[in-house]
């Protein structure tokens, strides 16, 4: 009780340095752990969402305010009507609510917001289905039937191979050749890209979710599925000569002409795998003979330019899912969420700071 409490100043340095050093080490350790978690330090090969978007940005010129991939497109809207088969597979409200409003976006692959529509090998459909229970279901689908890379590392290698060589201004063909040599899945994708015929419209193209998801029904049963939007409009091929002659905004103009005559419809079809079919690898297509179920019909009624349309400020993150739908463990699907979020933040920041006149004005840019 009466023992004198020495003030810190009077302590011999040796006794007071140890706790101070310990406190310093704890603070430093905490800061280092935080920096490591944030991806600021650690092994140089570690890939972050920011790094992936940086890589995508490096493949082309800057286009402030536009999506970093699938940059050119139009907004669309309509509704979705589920079927009884859909309700049996999933408790998602989209299958039970009549005529759910849908906001969407039709686009072409690539990072050039002024690219020629008909020249694009890949076409895409993104949807946001907002049900009356306040839930959302966002989808990102493409015209390719399977993905071109089996793993995240392969996907990154493919993206890096598209970065132009500073000497030539074009991607180094040796890098793409090395990527193709390493991955048979990539060669299969290339064979599809070279041989599959292109249609003459966004409206008669099929769009595939590619990744596996789970439908969960009211009984709690989990069914793996891959979904596609199959056009009701008949396929009409557009050959290479026609594509070369088409105007830059051919697909958008053609879509407007079709919409002027009535809604455009797609059947939403899910494919159910057999035991042994790949669930976590989007580069492995499932055999054609697998059971297929039509779970709904999508009707698109209107289109608007994306610069002023309601889809511009929407991130079509395919992992925004309602109850009744869940993601698989597909690592490329998981990566989309982070990469899309980073791309979304960057372009919204450019729009907010007024640096994106081309992305927010309907005026035709050069």
């Amino acid at each position: 009780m009466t023992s004198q409490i020495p003030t810190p100043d009077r302590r011999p340095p040796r006794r007071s340095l140890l706790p101070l050093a310990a406190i310093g080490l704890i603070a430093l350790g905490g800061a280092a752990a935080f920096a490591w978690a944030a991806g600021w330090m650690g092994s140089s090969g570690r890939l972050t969402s920011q790094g992936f978007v940086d890589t995508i940005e490096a493949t082309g010129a800057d286009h402030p305010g536009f999506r970093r991939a699938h940059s050119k497109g139009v907004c669309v809207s309509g509704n979705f009507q589920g079927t009884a088969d859909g309700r049996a597979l999933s408790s998602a409200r989209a299958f039970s609510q009549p005529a759910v409003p849908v906001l969407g976006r039709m686009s072409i692959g690539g990072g050039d917001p002024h690219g020629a529509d008909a020249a694009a090998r890949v076409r895409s459909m993104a949807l946001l289905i907002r049900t009356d229970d306040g839930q959302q279901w966002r989808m990102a689908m493409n015209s390719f039937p399977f993905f071109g890379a089996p793993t995240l590392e392969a996907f990154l290698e493919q993206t890096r191979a598209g970065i132009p060589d500073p000497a030539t201004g074009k991607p180094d063909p040796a890098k793409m050749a090395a990527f193709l040599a390493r991955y048979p899945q990539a060669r299969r994708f290339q064979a599809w890209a070279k041989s599959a015929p292109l249609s003459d419209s966004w409206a008669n193209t099929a769009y595939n979710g590619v990744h596996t998801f789970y439908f969960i029904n009211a009984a709690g049963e989990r069914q793996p599925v891959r979904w596609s939007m199959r056009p009701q409009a008949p396929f009409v091929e557009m050959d290479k000569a026609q594509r070369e002659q088409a105007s830059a905004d051919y697909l958008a103009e053609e879509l407007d002409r079709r919409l002027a005559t009535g809604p455009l419809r797609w059947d939403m079809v899910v494919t159910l795998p057999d035991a042994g079919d790949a669930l976590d690898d989007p580069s492995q297509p499932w055999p054609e003979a697998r059971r297929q179920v039509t779970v709904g019909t999508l009707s698109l009624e209107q289109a608007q330019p994306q610069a002023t349309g309601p889809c511009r400020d929407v991130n079509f993150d395919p992992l925004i899912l309602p109850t009744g739908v869940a993601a698989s463990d597909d690592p490329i699907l998981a990566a989309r969420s982070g990469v899309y979020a980073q791309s979304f933040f960057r372009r919204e920041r450019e729009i907010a700071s007024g640096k994106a006149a081309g992305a927010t004005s309907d005026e035709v840019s050069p």
Partner: protein
Amino acid sequence: MNPRPREHFNLLARVLHWSMAVLILTMLFVGVTMVASLTLRPMLIELHRPIGIAILLLALLRLGNRLTHRPPPLPADLPAIQKTAARASHWVLYALMLSMPLIGWGMLSASGYPIVMFGGVHLPDILPHSPTLFALLRGAHGLLAYLLFATVLLHLSAALYHAWVRRDGVFASMARGPVHDESR
């Protein structure tokens, strides 16, 4: 000089302090990890939203408790600058633990994302869908997270300085209740 019997924080304050310490540190690490990670984001964001709202509710309760219960005074012999730093850092911590969840909630509203808690339970939008608001709040959420982490580290270092160097009972006043230990 006899060591003055020290007051302690009340039980609610201590329970809130230590449970929120765990939650806030978890959130800071979940937050920076999910923004960077290509694999963990979907899982971590499902944790981030409900924990953030839990912190907001706990912070409101804590603010109420703090305003109705005077905390133990700082030691009289603590240099004035350290007293000022202690008070300022505490109010920064309160401001951030209340504003970070609100900024996160507002940022999700402005982005058009659904604000999912768990299962089908979600919160209403508190702001309109707007790229300007989203960009502002998303930027602020990230920067203020760094400020919060830095303040937490400072707070931790100061607490350990009281515990190990000054040994003035400040750490004990939050670490435990007033057991019969004033002779120590």
